[in-house]
């Protein structure tokens, strides 16, 4: 039940910290004092644990308890309306407090939203977006073709690499020996870290490495695609049926033959489907990556945006919408058809 305790403790610590801010109204200097604030947070968690165990001691069902209790207990719970339960009140309190704090932090302001000057500016941009400047269309088309090729190359290079990696990070293939398990853990970690870094960041790193342009964008996308595809592929490998593997092993086939004849037929379709989907995602991401100098239409867009040339931006935005919509639709139809 430690998950429930930790959950409640963190929740209570959070309320405690917000209460401190409300009561003491700290200035910027005080907010930036990371060392002291960390201590306060730890104190909050400690208090939280105290309350959490306390509530549990007097038999109150806290939110953490309600979330993490095992299924067989959940099934036994009496149906009480949530607003009459302790955990319901706890959830509502957390939600309302977070909404109020959120309004403060994101500086939501109806005044700004309805300010006539600002509104006029936005209207001007919107109007010019809908009055695209067609003279840059030819260059825009070339740029979007470049973007689609960036996405294509990133996907095509990523697929075989991810294919091989996916076997090396599938638990059912590698889990048998300590060495295999070591490789599995190592690759999993590397791929998870790679994947958790956005392609945008990778593209920035590569623009420094190979210079601004489509090559940097392609490399960034490719790296992210390898990590994502390897993860998705390996999940399919992990849920293949054992029967065919046993059947082929029993014929005296070698390990490579077992993989080819018993595993591969079970995973080709999901592999193809996810690969097409990945290309589709990559086209969308390639436009964004262009914004940081990864080439293609994104790079062009950010240049016009910097000069506030809105009709030109409108043209490019239109092209992106058409390209993404086309890729999205095509990929959805193909994936549906081969299922």
């Amino acid at each position: 039940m430690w998950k429930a305790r930790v959950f409640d403790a963190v929740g209570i610590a959070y309320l405690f910290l917000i209460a401190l801010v409300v009561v003491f109204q700290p200035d910027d200097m005080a907010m930036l004092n990371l060392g002291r604030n960390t201590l306060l947070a730890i104190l909050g968690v400690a208090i939280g644990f105290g309350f959490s165990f306390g509530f549990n001691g007097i038999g109150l069902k806290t939110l953490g308890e309600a979330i993490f209790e095992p299924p067989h207990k959940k099934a036994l719970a009496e149906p009480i309306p949530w607003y009459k339960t302790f955990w319901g009140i706890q959830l509502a309190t957390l939600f309302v407090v977070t909404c109020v704090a959120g309004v403060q932090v994101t500086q939501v302001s109806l005044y700004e939203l309805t300010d006539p000057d600002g509104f006029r500016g936005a209207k001007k941009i919107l109007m010019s977006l809908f009055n695209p400047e067609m003279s840059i269309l030819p260059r825009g088309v070339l740029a979007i073709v470049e973007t689609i090729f960036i996405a294509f190359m990133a996907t095509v290079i990523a697929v075989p690499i991810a294919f091989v990696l996916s076997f090396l990070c599938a638990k059912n293939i590698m889990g048998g020996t300590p060495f295999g398990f070591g490789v599995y853990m190592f690759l999993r970690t590397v791929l998870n870290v790679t994947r958790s870094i956005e392609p945008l960041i990778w593209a920035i790193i590569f623009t420094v490495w190979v210079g601004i342009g489509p090559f940097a964008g392609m490399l960034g996308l490719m790296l992210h695609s390898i990590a994502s595809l390897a993860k998705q592929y390996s999940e399919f490998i992990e849920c293949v049926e054992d029967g065919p593997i046993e059947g082929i092993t029993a014929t005296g086939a070698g390990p490579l033959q077992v993989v080819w004849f018993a595993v591969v037929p079970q995973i080709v379709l999901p592999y193809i489907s996810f690969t097409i989907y990945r290309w589709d995602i990559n086209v969308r991401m390639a436009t964004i990556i262009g914004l940081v100098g990864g080439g293609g239409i994104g790079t062009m867009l950010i240049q016009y945006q910097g000069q506030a040339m809105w009709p030109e931006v409108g043209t490019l935005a239109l092209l992106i919408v058409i390209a993404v919509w086309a890729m999205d639709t095509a990929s959805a139809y193909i994936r549906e058809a081969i299922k």
Partner: protein
Amino acid sequence: MAEPLLQIKNLEKVYPNGMRALKGVSFDVKPGEFLVVIGLSGSGKSTMLRCLNHLHDPTSGSIVFKNEDVTHLEGKKARDVRRRMAMIFQHFNLINRHTVLSNVLMGNLSRTNSLSSIMGMFSSEAKEKALGYLDLVGIREKAYVRADQLSGGQQQRVAIARALAQEPEILLADEPVASLDPATCHTVMDYLEKVNKELGITIICNLHFLSLVRRYATRVIALKEGNMVYDGDPKNIDEAWFEKIYGEGAREVHVN
């Protein structure tokens, strides 16, 4: 008396989780026998077959195959023993997305190098033979149909053809008819009998129904909680033995 084909002595299997599935089983198998293994669910029948062809590694004891100790083998040697002891399964274990013929050709994998098998290059001789085996189990006309389009009984016959393509000396069958209806059950058992009688392949088969045992077995062994409790003629399994194998108050179920 003929030289034993397989000599199993004190075979033990302890699974990694500590489960002792076999607790010292010993018996000989003579060439040409149709040996049936019976016993309650969980008595260790599947475990025993899988130890024989090294799908599982036995913990201790010994397996002698034609005077050669094959108890602990790895790599190429283990694969060679698997080829000589083909196996069929309760759930057929075919490759659904491949054709029937392609499934049967997979019986040749241990004798084809990895690269040519992956390119799908099997000799025309192997193909001829594969079609011949399909003929033997009566479904040659299904050769180019996808395996998952067939009924359960037909799939099991394809599995038998795949096993035959291995040109085995022994055929292990783990409850080959347990997921089939009674009529289909007999068809498949009849083909096993044909393989046994016409090709002279020794059969070791796990079965649940005593009526099938009496009809097909030339000899029976019974397992109970990992120990062998009976070894003999199927005709001699009477009421008393039945209760000993299956426990007090068990009733026989008939399949016709």
